[in-house]
């Protein structure tokens, strides 16, 4: 089939892999990537449960504004879409 927009996925070279922990799961990420990107690549979208109704939530604005993607790192809440994953990082979801 003719594609006017070629698929260029295989031309992308990513940095070396690192590994961090999300709840009990080991997550592979490329160095320099945000926590969110690594999680999404691993098929993880459900990052927290909302207050009040307890419904699942995940990243929404992907640019540090909506606060939907917050996770806990070292006891502090951070936006996963803005926080770079580092090797050995321990990240906790806000899922109940």
């Amino acid at each position, binding site marked *: 089939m003719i594609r006017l927009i070629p698929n260029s996925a295989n031309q992308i070279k990513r940095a070396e892999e690192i590994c961090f922990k999300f709840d009990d799961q080991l997550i592979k990420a490329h160095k320099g990537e945000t926590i969110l990107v690594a999680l999404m690549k691993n098929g993880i979208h459900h990052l927290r449960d909302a*207050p009040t109704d307890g419904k699942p939530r995940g990243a929404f604005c992907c640019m540090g504004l909506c*606060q939907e993607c917050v996770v806990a790192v070292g*006891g*502090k*809440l951070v936006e996963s879409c803005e926080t770079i994953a580092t090797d050995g990082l321990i990240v906790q979801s806000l899922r109940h």
Partner: protein
Amino acid sequence: MTKTYDLAIVGGGIMGCSTALRLAEDGMKTIVLDQGDLGQGASGVNAGTLSLQIKRVKLMPYALKGHSEWEAMGEAVGFKKTGGFTLAFTEHEAELLYERQALKADAGAPITFVSNNALRAAEQNLSHKVLAASYCPEDGYANSSLTGQYYRIRLKENEVQFREKCNVKLITRNSSGFNLTTSCGTVHATRLLLAAGAWLKPIAADLGVDLPVRARVNTVSVTERMPPLISSIVGHATGLLTMKQKSNGAILIGGGWQGQGVPQDGRGNVTAKTLIPNLSLAQHVLPELSNARVTRSWVGFEANVPDFYPLAGALPGIENAFVLGCVRGGYTIGPYMGRLMGDYILGQEPELPLFDPGREFSEV
């Protein structure tokens, strides 16, 4: 024929609204006028602390009465009686705490001094550097954001008229009372109550009365939801910190650090110069707060006169005109002051004395 009200109230804060409710009990035809929304001034943005430990000694009987009013308002205003601790960290602060809280206890507040162990047993997460602490089981908080909603509902229930987005621009007198020129038409009333908070001075000046009203610009901040950290309200011996954790987990931090701006310009501004020490002090008291993010800070205007006692009574020299405002800790005491003011306007003897707005004011 335009309608003439028995009373027009300028200002839909806690003072104006609570007075209106008292008057409705006796069937007085009242209208409340606010330039913005009901409870958009100090009454809607304050820290909501209901603490006897930060009330002035002379106002203690009023504050005690105020507390029972809040208890009665209950859930509808987010009332919680949590008890409160006041903390001192230096010798000097401890002295201040002993001296002040003892006087307040004498004035009737059930305040006691507590040991560090007792404090820690009650609140594990507070700083271990506390030197002295006092406790009052009557203390608690309410949610000031609900002030507008609460009074909107209550005024409607009691068939009291109110108009929002109705700025009173000019008040003149005529043979039968007062003419109020407002942004939504003219209002006639035989009596007048000025309850315009930090905006009292210009409106009283319309009637040729000079009230020495000034305004403080208090700062409040709130964090995002946090895991449970404190269950009581927590204050500082100097009064420059009040802190509570709401049931949703958010921590509200106040204490009256001064922002910038004047009421006439509309809204004031938070300034980093005072916000940062305010938040530092809060973290000193509750170290876990360093993990929190502040999501919002704001200021509100708290009116006062030089002696820091209320203006509550007849507007000097103007028959049938009254003024209520400048009450320190006015959120706590407001609902009760409104009741007293209502009694007075109705010609009944108030349960506790009012504060003559015509007195000589000396600076404290």
